[in-house]
């Protein structure tokens, strides 16, 4: 049975601390550039702050972590890439982005309704000496290519290598946990195999509180969200009037 890695993010548990964003950036050698802004920066994991549009005591806010949804069906970015730099992996269900193949046409970015893809507008750079702190498992991307969440693929690599060295065929699930999942202080992000019906994640994904953004587009994203609050559930459908709180 092939694996289908997926997530369930409990929005009621997310405190918007941003640990997932920084853990992700550190794990994946994402640079931090002084020129980068909220619209040109690189945040493969991005926590967005959403309000119910009201003011004063009636105001409610929720924090929505947005990452690549690893769409299972008619994956928008896969079909549009002119040179197979993106693919939906048969074995794992991970949507893989290959920066070394990418020519930077950015067609996939216009195709992604979740804005989960980011372009390297600048060459990556680190303060002098800090390149020593780069994660050896992840290649640094160059200017002019698109990158996104690959579900911390370096961790899957080491898990596989460990298994192989031990003479095992399957990896130990405990060895493969993406950085954001590991970092979340409230365990709001659950990660697991959606293809396995007994996996807590697939159970959570099938619960009544679970939903996916823009479900009706029909791309079958593998990142689910859940919340008990009605106004938060309403965010999945496209209705205008609720906007990102600036700052």
């Amino acid at each position, binding site marked *: 049975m092939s694996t289908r890695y997926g997530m369930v993010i409990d929005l009621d548990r997310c405190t918007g601390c941003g640990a997932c964003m920084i853990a992700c950036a550190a794990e994946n050698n994402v640079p931090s550039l002084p020129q980068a802004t909220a619209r040109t920066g690189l945040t493969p994991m991005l926590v967005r702050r959403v309000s119910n549009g009201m003011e004063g005591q009636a105001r409610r806010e929720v924090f929505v972590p947005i990452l690549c949804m690893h769409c299972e069906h008619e994956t928008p970015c896969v079909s549009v890439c002119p040179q197979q730099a993106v693919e939906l992996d048969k*074995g794992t269900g991970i949507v893989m982005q290959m920066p070394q193949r990418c020519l930077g046409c950015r067609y996939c970015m216009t195709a992604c309704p979740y804005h989960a893809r980011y372009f390297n507008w600048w060459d990556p750079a680190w303060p002098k000496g800090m390149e020593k702190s780069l994660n050896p498992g992840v290649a640094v991307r160059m200017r002019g290519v698109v990158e996104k969440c690959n579900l911390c693929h*370096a961790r899957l690599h*080491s898990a596989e290598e460990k298994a192989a060295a031990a003479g095992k065929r399957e990896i130990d699930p405990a060895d493969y946990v993406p950085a954001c999942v590991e970092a979340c202080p409230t365990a709001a992000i659950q990660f697991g195999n959606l293809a396995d019906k007994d996996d807590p994640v697939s159970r959570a994904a099938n619960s009544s509180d679970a939903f996916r953004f823009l479900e009706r587009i029909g791309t079958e994203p593998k990142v689910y969200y859940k919340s008990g609050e009605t106004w938060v559930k309403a965010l999945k459908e496209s209705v205008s009037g609720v906007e990102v709180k600036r700052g």
Partner: protein
Amino acid sequence: MNARRNAVVFGLGLATALLAGWLAFPRALYTRQNQPLAFLHKTHAGKSGYAECGQCHALREDGTFGGIPSLDTCTSCHSERMGTSADEAVLVDAYVKTGQEVPWLIYSRQPANVWFSHAIHVRRANLACTECHSTYGESDQVRIYEKNRISGYSRDIWGHSISRIHFSGRHDGMKMNDCEDCHRRHQVQVGCLGCHQ
């Protein structure tokens, strides 16, 4: 007359280009470097009785590949000069005594964007080292290390024939195509990120 002359001149141009492209170009494309020391696999395999590659080029506990042994492996025997060769002197004086690692030039070093797991290929797939590294482990002389001026890759990645045409059907290179060929032969399918990082 005029036409014949043209033909000759045209042919001359053609010939020049072909010669330059097939003979001069490959030489010009690569820089040639010597290894810091003339390490001979044969001698070491023989004298020190290492039979298996894995005895020196071992896997670490976490399954990652150790690569070329660190200096202390050398020091275990070469703490003092063991012969009269010049390289022996260099080894002991420049490295063993100073404790500085030997800056070996790695023929088969893949770029940072490649993830290759020896554990998976050797333990799981039971491939012999020679599948990729040929019989260098038995060689009795050091090879010149050739580096591509543009890409910075070792020549072993592209393989030694510039055309990459091998009538045996098997390349001596370590290019992506070579990985793909082997994977095709063994019907192993991996996605892009199965081999890239």
